[in-house]
C-alpha cells in the first residue's frame, strides 16, 4: 500500500508539472462528444442558456478534471447553440434595413460553407464528410457519410435542411447555433461533398 501511495503521489506531481501546451488542442465538439459522453448522454447545447453553461462547465472542470483549454473549447461550442433568453430589444421600424450583428456573417456560398463546416461539422463528419471525424467513434449510429452520393440524393432539400437545423440522433440542431445565412451556406457545402465523391 505504501508503494501504491508513492506511485499515485509521483504521478500527481508529474501531472501538475507537465507543460499544458504539450497537447494538441481538442475542439469543443470533440470534448463534448468524447469526454462529456464518457459519463452521461451528450446534452444538446440548447438545453441551457449561455450563463447556465458557464456554471455547468466550471462544475465539470472541477468534477471531471477538464483542462482549462478543454473546458473553454466545450463552453464555446455549447454557448454558440445555447437556449436564447427572451430579450426585450426594440424591434426595428418597418422598412429599416439592419445589418447582421454576427461578425462572422459572410455571403451564402459553398466557400463560406466550407469555413463553417470546418468549424462546426468536421469533428464528427470528417474532412471529406465520410463520417469519420475524430469524434465519430463516440456515437452509435456513426455520423452520416455526407460524401455518399446515393444517401445524399435520397434526401430532399427540405429533409436535409430539417436534419441540420433541428438535429438528428445525437447531432444537435444548428438552427440555434448558426444564423440562417450560414446554415444555407453549410447546406450548399454539404451538397458539394457528395458531388465530389
Amino acid at each position: 500500500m505504501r508503494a501504491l501511495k508513492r506511485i499515485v503521489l509521483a504521478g500527481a506531481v508529474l501531472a501538475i508539472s507537465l507543460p499544458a501546451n504539450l497537447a494538441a488542442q481538442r475542439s469543443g465538439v470533440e470534448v463534448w462528444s468524447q469526454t462529456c459522453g464518457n459519463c452521461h448522454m451528450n446534452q444538446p447545447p440548447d438545453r441551457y442558456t449561455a450563463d447556465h453553461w458557464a456554471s455547468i462547465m466550471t462544475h465539470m472542470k472541477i468534477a471531471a478534471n477538464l483542462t482549462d483549454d478543454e473546458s473553454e473549447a466545450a463552453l464555446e461550442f455549447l454557448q454558440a447553440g445555447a437556449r436564447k433568453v427572451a430579450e426585450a430589444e426594440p424591434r426595428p421600424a418597418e422598412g429599416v434595413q439592419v445589418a447582421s450583428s454576427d461578425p462572422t456573417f459572410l455571403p451564402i456560398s459553398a466557400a463560406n460553407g466550407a469555413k463553417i463546416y470546418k468549424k462546426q461539422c468536421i469533428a464528427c463528419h470528417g474532412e471529406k464528410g465520410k463520417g469519420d471525424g475524430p469524434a465519430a467513434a463516440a456515437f452509435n449510429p456513426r455520423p452520416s457519410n455526407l460524401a455518399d452520393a446515393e444517401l445524399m440524393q435520397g434526401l430532399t432539400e427540405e429533409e436535409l435542411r430539417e436534419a441540420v437545423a433541428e438535429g438528428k440522433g445525437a447531432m444537435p440542431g444548428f438552427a440555434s447555433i448558426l444564423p440562417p445565412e450560414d446554415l444555407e451556406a453549410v447546406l450548399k457545402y454539404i451538397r458539394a461533398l457528395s458531388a465530389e465523391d
Partner: protein
Amino acid sequence: MRTGVGSRAACVSALAAFAVLAFAGEAGAQGLMVTGYADLEAQVQNVGGDNDTEFFFDNHHFNVIAMGNIIGDIFAAAEVEYEHAGEEIALEYGYIGYTGLKNFRIMGGQFIVPFGRFNKDLHPTWINKMVDRPHGFRNIFPQTYSDVGIWLSGGTAVGNGARIAFDAFVVNGLMGEDGEDIRGFRGNDREKQDGGRDNNKAFGGRLGLELAPQGFDIGASIYTGNYSDNPDEDLNLRLFGADAAYRNSGLEIRAEVVTADQEGTVEDLTKTGGYVQAAYLVDSKWEPVVRLSVRNMPGESQDQNRLSFGLNYYISPAAAVRLNYHINNEDSDFESDNNSIAAMLVTSF
C-alpha cells in the same frame, strides 16, 4: 444518511438561499442556476421465492442542485438530496471553489470524495446505467461518500487528446467502532465527534489517464485514515480502488474494483468488491446492459454476487426508463432464489 430536524432546516435554508440568488435578476447574471435529478422506482423482490415476495414504489431521489460562478474565480455548488420520498434528507455536497489557477482547482467544504468512478461520477441515477449500485459500493466503499475538508483537482493534457486527471483530498474521514461495517462510518461531522475529538484526518485521491479519441480511461484511487472512534485505539482503514473503461460506437465496457484493509484489535479484516459492466447504445434510444458485481467479505456468510440484465430507453438525452432483472446469490440468511426486478423512470432537470 438520516438527519435531524436541525439539519433538515439547514439544508432547506441553504437551498432556499441559493434559489433566491439563482432567480434574482442581479445574481442570475452571475450564472447561478438550479438543476438536479429525480426518479421513481418500482421494485419486486424475492421473485420466484415463497410468499415473501415484496412489491413497492419508491421515490428514491429528488435531488436539487444549486451552483454558479459567484464572483471572479469563485464557484459554489450544493446538492440537497431528498431520498425515499423525503424520509432521508441530507446535504450531499456544499462547497466553494477557487478556479483561477491554470488547470488546477481548490475546493473547501463538503464534497463527494473523489475515489473511483462510481462514487465520483457515475452514481447519480440519471447517469448510472442500472437502477441499483453494484456490490462493493455499499459495505466496502460506502458510496455515496461525502466528507468535509479540502479537495484539490485538475487535469493536464499530455498530447493527442490524452489527459491526466488528478484529485487529492484531506477530510475528517470515516469513523466508527472497531471492526464494524464501513457503511456506518460516514457522517464524521462535528456532531458525531462530540466536540471535535478526532484529530486524525484521512487522506487520499485519484490519478487517472483518459485517452479520449481512443475512448479509453483508467484510474487508481486510495484512501487512508484512522477510523476508530476510541481515542486510545489507532486502527487504520485503507481503501484502494482501480477502474477502467472503454467506449466505441455505442459500446461501453467498465470495470471497477475496491479493496478495504480494516485494522482491528482482534483481527484485521480484508474486504473486496467490484463490477464489470457492458452496455450498447443503439440509435441513441435503446441500451441493453449487463453487469456482474461481487463482494467478498470476512467469513463466507457475507459474500454476495449479482448478475444483472438491464434495458434502458432514453426518452431524451436527460430522461430514461430503466428495467432490470437481478439474479442474486447471497451466502447469508437469504435463499438462493431471491431474484429481483427493478424499474425506474429518471430525469435530470
